[in-house]
Each structure stands twice: as structure tokens, then as C-alpha cells.
């Protein structure tokens, strides 16, 4: 509306200016050159559709004046000069009208794109903003302002400052604060974090990534904030469901494995094939049992209900036990299994849980290595910590999948292609247990060449 009103005003001024100039020109007999020079700004100012109208009016009135002048005695007007002036003015009017229309069309198009873009970013559910290299907000959308108000994020300052300001409202303020400080420092990578607002149960997922200038240089960062409370609630429901089902599975497992035990006592009465069938059932039952236990452990870990029974643990000794337990399955497959230890420091840990991790890593290495390959397990002290490396010469994990190997139920394509049995829970459980011990676990692999899993555990001191 405002734009339209401004346009009418400008047109009015231009037409009035044109008429006044015309009158002066006629009254004092200006030359056609001077006429063009003085008309030009007015005609250009019209510069809209009205430019044509202005031109036509000007032409019409000059012809009219010429007719009046010819019929009035005592005044003489040069017809040729009038015709030149009129023609020039018409040409100017048409030109400026066309230029004005083109300008307006592109202006309108730009306005449309801008309003569409702001409608777009304002109507998403996620809060979005763009910051410059110092973290100052360049543009933000409406949902971000709404979420900010709800969470109590300040509406001024750099984004890292705003995020830090609400640390005390978070479920884990110390961890949050530390993470936000790290975030303020990183520039080159994109990160995703989730945090819970204490007392409300609301969970938000923040994403931030660098944004580049067209020349590739660092321009700033984009930040998005999404509420994932409902997703987390679904996760909790799913975990509760999995836990219930898994517990219920223990009942049929009890009768299957119990009667299996009884049958095995009478194994001699079965024929050759009967004994084979029994063995197959026993293996299947064991796998089912292991799966149920893994599912339950995962559910416990998710619910943060795993409590470590801490005590001094000699990782070298524990590893040696694991390796010895796995030796039969390695030699069955023709895989060389080697253990290298020096004297690593004693760690504070849960013996059973660490054994679980070791069993998992060593059995994985054997499982994914073909006959003729080798598995090397080494335990050593590294900067006062314990460093355990399980390396194999097996099928490996494709590079693009390595980021997911610690996710629940994830199975590498190299494993599924060869139909190697597994649930995709082992590494996820291992990581959770190692992290609960304050340690780290990483995996590096080259497809077709082998895999290396490195675990570090902090020592007692």
C-alpha cells in the first residue's frame, strides 16, 4: 500500500513539474535542446506506466497549443520546432516508461523471492539463524525467537554467549557448559548436540555448520534448534517395549533350554542325526539367549540403569582370559590368535562388564576374519593409561559406514553380504560400557584389509 501511494505522489510531482517546465518553455521560447534537457528529469521521474500517458498528454497539449497559437493573431510559433520537441518528448516518455516497467518487474520479482524466503524460514518448526564469523546474528526466524523466549535464551549477544547463558537451566549444566565452550571454538565442522531443559522434560537438538562465501572462505555459521521431546518420548516407549518383550522371552527360553539339558542327558539314546539336530537347537537357543540378554542390557544402558561394580582390574590378565576362551573358535576357523602384553597399570573397573567388552571385541575380530587370517590383541600402558588394541586381517568395514558402527543394530554391509550372523548390538554395548568407565573406544578399518579397535581406559591414578 505504502509503495503504491509513494508511486502516485512521485507521478504527480513529475507531471506537475513537466507541465510547469512546458509552460515556462513556451512562454520564454526556449530552444529545443534546452527543452530536452529540462524535460528529461521530469519524464525520467515519471518512469512508470504513466510515462506513456505523460508523453501523450505532453504531445497532445503541444499540438493543441500550436493550433491555438496559429489561430491567435500576434503570436507566431515555429511548427517545426514544436514537432521536434514533441517527438523528442514522446521518445523520452516511451523509453523511460519501458525502463520503468522493467525495473518494477524485477523489483517485484525480488520482493516476491524475499517474502517467500522469509515466509519459508518463518513457517518451519525449527529455529534457524545465521551468524557472522564473530557469532553475531545476521538473520533469524520466528520459531527461533519463540523457542528462545520459552527456554529463556537471551535475545542479544553472540549465539555462543546466548547458549552459555542458559547453562544453569539444563539437566546436566556442567557437561552442557563445557560442550558450549567447545562449540564456540570450532569453526570448520558441523555438529549435532542434544540437551534437556531441567525440570521440563523438554529435549532440544541443536545443529550448527559453517557457511562459506561464494569464494569458499568462512562466512559464518548456520544454527538450527529443534525440539525433539516427542522423539525422545517415543524412544523411551520403544525401549520399554523392547525390555518387556525381552523379559517375556526369558520364559519360553527357560523351558527350551531346560528340556534341552534333559535331552542332552539322554543324548546317547538318540541316533547320529538326532544328536546333530539337538546340537543345532542348542546353538540356536544360545544365540537367542545372547540376543535377549543384549537387548536387555541395551535397554538398561539407555535407561542409565547399569551400575558398575568397581574394583581394581588387571586388564592384561582379563584380556588373556578372554583370548584363551576364544582360542578354540579361532583354531576351528584357522585364524591365528595372538596376545601381546606388557605390564599395563591397574584400572578401576567392573570385571564382568570389561570381560563382556573384551569377549565381544575378540569374538568380533575372529568372526569377521577368514581362515588363514590373524587376530592380534595387545594390551600396553600408554601415557599412564591402558591401551588395548584388537586388530584383525578380516573383511573390514567400508569407510562410509565407519561412523555408524557404534550405533544400535547397525551391521556393516560387508558382514550382511556374507550373511555373518550378529545383532549389531555388540559394539554399541561395548562403547557404552567403556565410556561409563571413563574410557574411549575407536574403530579404524580398511575394507578387505582388516579392522582395528582401540580402547583406552584411564588408570587408577
Amino acid at each position, binding site marked *: 500500500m505504502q509503495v503504491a501511494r509513494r508511486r502516485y505522489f512521485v507521478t504527480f510531482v513529475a507531471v506537475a513539474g513537466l507541465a510547469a517546465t512546458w509552460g515556462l518553455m513556451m512562454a520564454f521560447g526556449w530552444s529545443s535542446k534546452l527543452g530536452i534537457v529540462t524535460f528529461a528529469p521530469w519524464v525520467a521521474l515519471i518512469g512508470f506506466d504513466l510515462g506513456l500517458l505523460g508523453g501523450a498528454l505532453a504531445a497532445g497539449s503541444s499540438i493543441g497549443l500550436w493550433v491555438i497559437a496559429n489561430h491567435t493573431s500576434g503570436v507566431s510559433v515555429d511548427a517545426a520546432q514544436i514537432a521536434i520537441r514533441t517527438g523528442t518528448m514522446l521518445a523520452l516518455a516511451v523509453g523511460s516508461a519501458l525502463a520503468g516497467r522493467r525495473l518494477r518487474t524485477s523489483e517485484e520479482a525480488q520482493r516476491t523471492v524475499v517474502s517467500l524466503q522469509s515466509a519459508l524460514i518463518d513457517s518451519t518448526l525449527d529455529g534457524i539463524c545465521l551468524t557472522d564469523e564473530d557469532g553475531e546474528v545476521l538473520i533469524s526466524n520466528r520459531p527461533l525467537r519463540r523457542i528462545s523466549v520459552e527456554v529463556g535464551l537471551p535475545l542479544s549477544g553472540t549465539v555462543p554467549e546466548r547458549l552459555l547463558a542458559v547453562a544453569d537451566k539444563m539437566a546436566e549444566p556442567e557437561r552442557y557448559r563445557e560442550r558450549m565452550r567447545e562449540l564456540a571454538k570450532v569453526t570448520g565442522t558441523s555438529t549435532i548436540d542434544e540437551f534437556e531443559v531441567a525440570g521440563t522434560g523438554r529435549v532440544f537438538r541443536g545443529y550448527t555448520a559453517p557457511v562459506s562465501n561464494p569464494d569458499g572462505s568462512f562466512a559464518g555459521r548456520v544454527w538450527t534448534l529443534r525440539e525433539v521431546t516427542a522423539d525422545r518420548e517415543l524412544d523411551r516407549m520403544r525401549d520399554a517395549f523392547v525390555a518387556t518383550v525381552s523379559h517375556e522371552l526369558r520364559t*519360553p*527360553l*527357560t*523351558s*527350551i533350554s*531346560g*528340556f534341552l*539339558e534333559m535331552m542332552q542327558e539322554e543324548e546317547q539314546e538318540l541316533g547320529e542325526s538326532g544328536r546333530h539336530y539337538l546340537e543345532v537347537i542348542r546353538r540356536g537357543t544360545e544365540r537367542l539367549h545372547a540376543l535377549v540378554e543384549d537387548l536387555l542390557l541395551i535397554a538398561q544402558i539407555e535407561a542409565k540403569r547399569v*551400575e558398575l561394580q568397581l574394583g581394581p582390574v588387571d586388564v592384561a590378565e582379563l584380556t588373556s582370559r578372554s583370548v584363551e576362551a576364544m582360542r578354540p573358535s579361532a583354531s576351528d576357523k584357522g585364524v591365528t590368535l595372538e596376545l601381546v602384553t606388557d605390564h599395563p597399570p591397574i584400572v578401576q573397573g567392573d570385571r564382568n562388564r570389561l570381560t563382556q567388552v573384551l569377549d565381544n571385541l575378540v569374538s568380533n575380530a575372529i568372526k569377521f576374519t577368514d581362515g588363514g587370517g590373524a587376530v592380534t590383541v595387545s594390551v600396553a600402558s600408554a601415557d599412564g593409561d591402558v591401551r588395548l588394541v584388537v586388530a584383525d586381517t578380516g573383511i573390514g568395514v567400508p569407510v562410509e559406514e565407519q561412523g555408524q558402527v557404534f550405533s544400535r543394530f547397525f551391521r556393516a554391509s560387508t558382514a550382511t553380504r556374507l550373511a555373518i550372523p550378529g545383532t549389531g548390538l555388540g559394539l554399541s554395548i561395548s562403547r557404552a560400557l567403556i565410556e561409563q568407565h571413563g574410557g574411549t573406544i575407536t574403530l579404524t578399518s580398511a575394507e578387505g584389509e582388516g579392522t582395528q579397535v582401540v580402547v583406552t581406559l584411564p588408570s587408577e591414578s
Partner: protein
Amino acid sequence: MTRRVLIAEPDQDVRELLELTVRRLGYETVAANEHGNVDAMLLEPACAMGRSVLRRFGADAPPVVCLSIYPREDGFEPAASVAYLVKPASSNEIADALRNVFGV
């Protein structure tokens, strides 16, 4: 005199297995709804049957061997419990627990 072990287990197949295990040890089995003298109980504490048996005996409950689908931390263990096994426990584990109860 033969020792009597009450079995309270909701699943029929598991119950049959437990009865077999108990009889193989030379003990007599008592069904959950049967009355009479009981020397020990083998029960699933996380089911209605197990809970009602425990209520019936109250403070006079004989030693209880629990065999549950839930871990001990889940808090189903009754006061009279002397052993807590998680399903699927092997027959040997169940037998050991019962023998311990009777001190054999």
C-alpha cells in the same frame, strides 16, 4: 520324610520343567494352590501367582528360591528369599540352590 517344595510358576511348560527338576532331586512337589506343609518354595516373584503364595504364607514363609524373568535390581525379591536366579537358569543352578536350602 521327603521334603516338600512348592512351585509357583505361571508358565505351564516352565512349571513342568521345574517339577521334573525338583522330583529328580528326590523332593516332593506341591502345587501353588495346594495347602499343607511346605519346606521350600521355588517361585516366580514377579507374577500374580507368586505374590499370592507369598501373601498366604506371610511371615511364616519357608526359604524361597526365586526364578524370575526380571533381574534382582527390579525389586521383586521377597524377604524370605535365599537365592535369586534369572531365567533361563540351568537345571544345575536350580538344583544347587535347592540343595543349599536343605544343606545337602
